[in-house]
């Protein structure tokens, strides 16, 4: 005898996940495909058991260290650019490698290979983004903004601003002001 079956892989997968998580008493929420939110912390033992039982169904927990590392690089840089009153005087490479305990060469390679961009480019974009905020807030002169963000001169900030946005800082300011007065 031959039986013909039809099935829905997604539903099957959700049921398996639910059953296994419940069996191990792990409080959870199934999010969209491929994501589960765990509410409490899970002991190493249950985690290992979960991994083990799911692997029988060819379900694997992705523990992508690379993407976690890239996120950490981004967070560290954003924190450096936004949280400090003035950017640190040491070089970015020194700052990053000290904060993250990896060589800068290793970090740049991982970053470039996985983001279609470079650490340098990411920093430029974030610095200009901060400059935009400061320009809009209108409390500092452009010279003060360039000092705060560690540019060697206003001219250098202006040229980098122009490169990233295609606009001069003053045109940018005028556009934002007009746009705001329009929407009010």
């Amino acid at each position: 005898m031959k039986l013909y079956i039809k099935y829905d892989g997604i539903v099957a997968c959700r049921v398996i996940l639910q059953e296994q998580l419940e069996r191990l008493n792990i409080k959870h929420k199934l999010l969209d495909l491929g994501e589960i939110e765990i509410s409490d912390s899970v002991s190493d033992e249950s985690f290992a058991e979960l991994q083990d039982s799911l692997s029988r169904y060819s379900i694997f927990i992705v523990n992508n260290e690379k993407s976690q590392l890239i996120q950490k690089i981004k967070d560290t840089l954003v924190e450096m650019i936004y949280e400090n009153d003035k950017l640190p005087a040491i070089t970015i490479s020194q700052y990053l490698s000290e904060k993250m305990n990896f060589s800068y060469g290793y970090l740049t390679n991982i970053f470039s290979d996985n983001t279609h961009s470079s650490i340098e480019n990411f920093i430029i974009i974030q610095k200009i983004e901060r400059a935009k905020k400061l320009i809009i807030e209108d409390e500092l002169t452009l010279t003060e903004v360039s000092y705060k963000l560690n540019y060697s001169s206003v001219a250098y900030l202006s040229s980098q601003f122009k490169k990233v946005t295609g606009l001069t800082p003053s045109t940018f300011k005028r556009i934002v002001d007009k746009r705001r007065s329009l929407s009010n």
Partner: protein
Amino acid sequence: MISHEDSMRILIADDDEDDRTFFSDAMMELKMNNNLTLFNDGKELMDYLANPDIMLPHLLFLDLNMPRKSGFECLKEIRADLRFKDVSIAIYSTSSSEKDIEETFIEGANIYIKKPNDFNKLKKVIKEVLNVNWQFHSSGLNKETFFFSI
């Protein structure tokens, strides 16, 4: 995470047939796996966007001078509708007047492209625009102050 490997939905409205072909050829040669839809004028584009069942585009290229409905009119209508708040709008025009550029940014455009007349330049420009737009979306930057003129 959105990446270049995911297909980006792109729409373009331009009444000049040569320009449309030129643009889609350039896009094709970039081989960036984009899903491009062409419209002959602003009216055609707005009729399409009016359908609530469509998948919203990531990026929209608008020619400024079109019959029936100009790019500028489309821009205003689209920005007045919150449904399209996450759509980036790129103005694609032969005009390089500072006034036109500023005016479109004030009305809510994100990108202003002076139409290049050389095919290789156009390819370079499109690549740059897609890259900048992607950076903007993937890095959580403020969309209200996203302007890029090239």
